[in-house]
């Protein structure tokens, strides 16, 4: 420790009366994804103290949703997570359906499941790409961005838009699968499965990523539960918990969801966790397509633009690619929600773990640490 470069640097800094300086890591930092920042107090290249600097993207969604009709909010909720918008729509609609105490048709459930899993694939590709870019492997990022486009094409075909699909509405979904969609989806899945070999070569078997990520940001099995981590981060620490299995929604009760867990809990394990779950998601979509029933895609809830939800409250959660996305919806029996509260999956990692992990870390590792925990600032800000 005494002869480590940062210790030496701190000694030099002390001699020159330059002990601690503040570094704004984000929102205008190349290593930061999204409009978020950490104010880092540094000695040399080592972080001493961290202060999260959120709020650059705070759009007041929770207040805004109280002023709009139930169905109008569908156009608003996907904006809470740009990379993975579908869990928002499904969680919001599920919460409404819970208060209404209705059960949507099976085909609608499967269509929601398929869009959720496709969204998970696209988000994983973006996440893996961000991780690759954070350690300087830009080729992998470019390939993944190109492959993500194939999934966005499918979304465009199914829903009419590439990023904000607005596909789920209370009572079901807006469109049925177009002709030829399933065949193309199978083709894209096969392509992605073949591409996995390429990803492995470029990213996951690359010595650079092993050297950079091994041991970085370790979370023990107990701490992961204690700190409220969810999703792949929780499972990479050895906890076999998944909302899709524990509290199933949409069509997951009918599907065999395999929960992948790994022991390890460091950034490398989390990176490999995403890769393994990516492979499992491809298989899950195939299983869902095989078991998808025919039938109605929407429940008739009367005039949706004048939908009234009875007095009550419900919490609905969805397993997004980053963890548990939850919507707590309160209705006073009117045309508009009384209160919608959104639980984003990134808050425990992005704010709490940052204060545990970042001190003593080198500045070079912050971007990789963030990407490995899949911190998505928009759902901290909302």
């Amino acid at each position: 420790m005494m002869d480590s470069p940062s210790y030496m640097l701190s000694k030099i800094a002390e001699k020159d009366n330059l002990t601690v300086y503040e570094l704004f890591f984000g929102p205008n930092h190349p290593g930061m994804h999204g409009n978020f920042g950490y104010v880092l107090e540094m000695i040399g290249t080592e972080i001493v103290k961290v202060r999260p600097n959120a709020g650059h993207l705070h759009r007041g969604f929770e207040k805004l949703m109280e002023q709009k009709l139930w169905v109008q909010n569908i156009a608003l909720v996907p904006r809470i997570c740009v990379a993975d918008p579908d869990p928002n729509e499904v969680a919001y609609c599920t919460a409404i359906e819970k208060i209404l105490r209705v059960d949507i048709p099976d085909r609608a459930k499967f269509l929601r499941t398929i869009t959720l899993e496709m969204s998970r694939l696209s988000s994983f590709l973006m996440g893996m790409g961000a991780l690759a870019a954070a350690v300087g492997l830009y080729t992998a990022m470019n390939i993944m961005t190109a492959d993500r486009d194939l999934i966005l094409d499918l979304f465009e075909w199914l829903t009419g838009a590439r990023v904000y699909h607005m596909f789920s509405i209370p009572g079901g979904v807006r469109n049925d699968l177009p002709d030829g969609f399933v065949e193309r989806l199978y083709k894209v899945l096969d392509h992605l499965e073949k591409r996995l070999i390429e990803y492995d070569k470029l990213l996951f078997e690359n010595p650079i990523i092993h050297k950079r990520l091994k041991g970085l940001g370790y979370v023990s099995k107990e701490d992961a539960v204690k700190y409220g981590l969810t999703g792949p981060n929780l499972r990479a620490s050895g906890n076999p918990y998944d909302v899709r299995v524990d509290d199933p929604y949409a069509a997951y009760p009918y599907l065999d969801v395999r929960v992948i867990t790994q022991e390890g809990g460091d950034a490398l394990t989390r990176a490999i966790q995403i890769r393994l779950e990516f492979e499992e998601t491809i298989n899950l979509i195939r299983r869902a397509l095989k078991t998808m029933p025919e039938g109605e895609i929407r429940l008739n809830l009367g005039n949706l633009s004048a939908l009234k939800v009875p007095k009550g409250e419900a919490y609905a959660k969805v397993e997004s690619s980053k963890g548990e996305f939850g919507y707590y919806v309160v209705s006073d029996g009117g045309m508009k929600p009384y209160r919608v509260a959104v639980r984003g999956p990134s808050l425990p990692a992005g704010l709490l773990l940052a204060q545990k992990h970042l001190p003593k870390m080198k500045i070079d590792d912050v971007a990789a640490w963030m990407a490995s925990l899949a911190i998505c600032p928009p759902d901290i800000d909302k």
Partner: protein
Amino acid sequence: MSLGDKSVYSPLTNLKNLFKKPMTVKYPKEILKVFPKDGVSPIYRGLHTNDLNKCIGCGMCQRICPFDAIEMKVIGENEQGRAIKKPVVDYGRCSFCGFCVDVCPTNSLKMSRHYIYKVKTVKSMSAKEEVEHIKQKFKLLPDESLGDDIGYNTGKTKKILG
């Protein structure tokens, strides 16, 4: 994930990428050929088109619009002396959610597959004037059509809203 020793020649395998088709299309010269129709998706939610003969000016689209993008504009009077109203879509506000199309009772309002909108700017204008100019122009007015290639519409399927 194993970290086995790799062959010295393994970088050469990347040469195969030289003979692969590119993932991108050169946009104005080529168009995307992934959907049954060339170009964007057959149900693309692009700029609106409104069939004025069918539009009854009921204002449902204005009421459902989550972002206040639609305004009903009076364009004349009918025989009984009542105002005829037609929707004006402000694309500075529109989020292309398509709820106005879902809610339209006569299926007159549809979305086209066009998504490029050009506003000619005048060079002599100051920056402030230009903003106002674009604000005025960046709209779908009742007497103009921005595209006739119908994309998102609920004509064939059952009504989604309303």
